[in-house]
């Protein structure tokens, strides 16, 4: 179980990262997140769509309808604005994880003086 507070911005980051490589539809995105994170991130699969809609509204993604095997899918892909957003999110996430890693690896030098 992942603390929801630590998940802020993570779905956006993962989605943008995946869609940067190739266009995908919702089910493919969720499957790819599961594979890439080795099931470490478990979210209700349906919650990916509000994130996609919001990113599209912000101009970070664009969508198109495509007929595949007789079914119409909504495929998403990253825009130039989305690439910039992704770069920012990656920087932010790297900074946070580096800081946390440093904090948990460094021995504690704190001492209490009476």
């Amino acid at each position, binding site marked *: 179980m992942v603390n929801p507070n630590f998940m802020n911005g993570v779905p956006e980051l993962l989605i943008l990262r995946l869609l940067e490589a190739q266009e995908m*539809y*919702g*089910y493919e995105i*969720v499957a790819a997140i599961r594979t890439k994170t080795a099931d470490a991130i478990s*979210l*209700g*699969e*349906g*919650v990916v*769509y*509000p*994130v996609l*809609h*919001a990113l599209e*509204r*912000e101009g970070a993604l664009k969508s198109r309808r495509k007929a595949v095997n007789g*079914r119409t*899918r*909504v495929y998403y892909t990253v825009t130039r604005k989305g690439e910039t957003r992704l770069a920012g999110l990656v920087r932010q996430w790297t900074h946070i994880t580096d800081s946390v890693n440093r904090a948990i690896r460094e021995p504690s030098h704190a001492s209490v003086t009476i």
Partner: protein
Amino acid sequence: MLQSRFDELRERLLRAGIAPRHVRRYIAELRDHFDDLVREETANGASQSAAEMKARARLGSDNDLAETMLARPDLRSLMARYPWAVFGVGPVAMLIAGLAAAVAIEVGVLNLISAQMHATGWKPSPAGLRRFILAAEVWNTLATYVAPFVIAVTLCVMGLRQRMPAFWIFTGIVIACVLGGFQEVHFSDDGHHGELSLGSGLLPPFSMKMVVGGLYRAVITSAAAAALYWFGLRRQRSGNTTIDSAATLPAE
């Protein structure tokens, strides 16, 4: 019940103000996703009913599905965010724009005919003039009767789609029908001089004829729009009831 569950989700999102286009797309994508999950689970050996149960659980609870959508205020419609603007200011602006467009078209046609008459020296016959005045009156009637009704119906349909409270929808209907009903556009031509006049029975000097005519039009168009609202609401409710009674998926 799957159909029913998504309909409940749809109703909840619309009532909370999420724009209908986002709700429609969300539900369509959830249905597709659900179908893909059922296929995946059945391919892994699950029975149809077990696959549907697992798929529904993987998709997320209704609460999670609704909460993630509601957590994005930018997906809310303009109507839900500013109902006073859409149903209060909207009909006034639409009436002014509609009237301005109708009058501009009428003046444009009159100017065109007038320029043609000056250039060629042509004069319409008395019968031709009567036909033209009749056409202008029909046009003016459309502007005064039909435009407010069309605006009221538009607000009614938009409000019903967003599941807006009846108060806002009726505010829009009444404003459109009363202001629109009292507006007057009249064209007259005695063969020498044409005149296009604009007025409102709500502005002084108050003539009994304009007030009575305005009230009559306001009541007629309001009643017609209210009847359409009632019909639309009934259809909406009966549609949901029918869907709610169809059970196809076990509960979570």
